[in-house]
């Protein structure tokens, strides 16, 4: 059956290219139309509108005429001392949480790739924190960190490590780190999935060869596993960086940005400016700056994907 088809196909394609290609394009258009309506019907207006609002000094949700300020809201962002504070918090959050998730996630993925008994059981466990809703995760850790009744202080006392209760969310820098710990506990799972998928593509005879060459497990990890994992690591690194840069939910439920704005991130600050202070124009400018930052990261991601594809072909 396949032999005549292979012979006939090029001829048929040459003969019917015009109408066939047009038919294909029309079919593609019909298939994509519902998705385009569902997505762009909702998104296009807000994306354009946010930009327009960011050019005006809008300070209430009511319609009306507000003074045009051009890029004034944007230049104001860079003169806003609070903005640099929340930018610093966001960068710290992003660097520390992504770094910790990457190191822990790689370690757990290596463990789950090792010859464990009942491996499916251990792998199922890693799915759990990922599936826990972000808000429930935040509420749970807020309760664990509670200075008066929290389980963390209780555990430290029971283990005779410390009997003076610590207000884990009571001072700015400590609170930021504790929120990061809660975020890492949940989101390390995603890194594990990606690294595990990467590990499964490494052929095991490479290790066999390395072992015969006398390489120790340690040097096999640094010289073999890590370089071969580089594409997976790069992809998950950028994805987690984007997510961490947008962080809002866990801050809202754990600390509300406090104490003393110590855990405010750029997304949270934008929310406060727009919905607490009703500075919709200023908030829109902040939102657009987040979009620019996220897109810059997304470009890096796409470039990595393309390089990964090339590497895959070779």
């Amino acid at each position, binding site marked *: 059956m396949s032999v005549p088809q292979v012979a006939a196909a090029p001829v048929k394609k040459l003969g019917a290219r015009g109408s066939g290609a047009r038919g294909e394009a029309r079919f*593609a258009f019909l298939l994509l139309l519902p998705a385009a309506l*569902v997505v762009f019907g909702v998104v296009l207006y807000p994306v354009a509108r946010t930009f327009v609002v960011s050019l005006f000094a809008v300070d209430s949700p009511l319609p009306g005429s507000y003074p045009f300020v051009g890029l004034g809201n944007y230049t104001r962002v860079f003169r806003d001392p609070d903005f640099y504070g929340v930018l610093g918090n966001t960068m710290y959050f992003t660097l520390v949480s992504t770094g910790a998730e990457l190191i822990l996630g790689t370690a757990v993925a290596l463990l789950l790739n090792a010859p464990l008994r009942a491996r499916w059981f251990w792998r199922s466990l890693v799915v759990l924190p990922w599936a826990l809703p972000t*808000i*429930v995760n935040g509420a749970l850790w807020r309760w664990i960190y509670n200075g008066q009744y929290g389980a963390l202080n209780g555990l430290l006392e029971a283990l005779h490590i410390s009997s003076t209760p610590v207000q884990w969310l009571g001072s700015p820098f400590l609170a930021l780190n504790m929120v990061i710990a809660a975020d890492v506990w949940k989101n390390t799972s995603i890194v594990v999935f990606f690294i595990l998928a*990467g590990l499964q593509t490494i052929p095991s005879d490479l290790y066999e060869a390395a072992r015969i060459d006398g390489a120790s497990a340690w040097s096999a990890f640094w010289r073999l596993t890590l370089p071969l994992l580089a594409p997976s690591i790069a992809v998950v690194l950028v994805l987690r960086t984007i997510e961490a840069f947008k962080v809002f939910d866990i801050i*809202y*439920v754990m600390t509300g940005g406090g104490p003393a704005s110590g855990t405010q991130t750029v997304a949270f600050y934008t929310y406060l400016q727009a919905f607490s202070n009703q500075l919709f124009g200023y908030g829109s400018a902040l939102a657009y700056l987040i979009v620019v930052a*996220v897109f810059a990261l997304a470009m890096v991601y796409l470039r990595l994907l393309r390089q990964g594809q090339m590497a895959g072909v070779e």
Partner: protein
Amino acid sequence: MRHSRNYMIAIHVAAVVMAVVILLPFVWLVISSVSPATDLVSAHVHWWPAHPTLSRYQAIFSSSVGGGDNVAANFRLAMVNSLIVAGATTAISLTVGALGGYAFARLRFRMRRTSLFTFLTVYMLPPIALVIPLYLALANLHLLDSKIGLILTYCSIVTPFCLWTMSNYYLSLPADLEEAARVDGCSRLGALVRIILPLSRPGLLTTAMFGFLLAWDEFLFALIFTSTSNAKTIPVAIAEFTGKFSSDFGLIAAGGVLAAGPPVILALLSQRFIVGGLTSGAVKG
């Protein structure tokens, strides 16, 4: 490959440590949900309640819808809202995503790459960039505090994700399937509906699960757009109650256990697909 005894012991000890770190917070959530309020606020932490109580679960499932202050009843209504919103979002997004994803995987047309990137761009947009004008637009359409308003918004985020994962799934199917169907006289649509979609059941199920999880977990839009138990979802109900001073964590914990139920069960059921399904598209491109 053979492994030494010490190596096998070491990796199992490490696995047990990992299990403890993962499970302890979950166990504490469940214990807190059945501990009497006096145990939760005593001077020393009670690791296990002397008199476990299911009263909070009873309250959530059976208390009558009185005023706006009945937190337990609000949790129940919020769960129902979340199920409706996430369910409808998943159904719509999966349908339009399964159709559109096929175009990206199998059909040649102009601007194919550009339009795919445009859809993915929407998926990457931070919600905070959309929420301000959407709030104003939904207010004009009288769709604030309605499930429809939330479903419309969520579909626009979940659909690009469904397009992407379904398109990757179709790419993993052998390409000559449609050829064979078309030789047998099927139309293009006929080949998709009768041959490809039935074969794509694993991909559809995995995509549906991720879509459901995305919608179930969403917080910012729900926080801004909803104000009563008409449309409030479970993350909003929990966050709201958590923020209140002197709140009963036992009730939050019971709500949290219920909110975690559907996604945890779904994730465990499809655990073996997650490593492949979530990552294949993103790694391979």
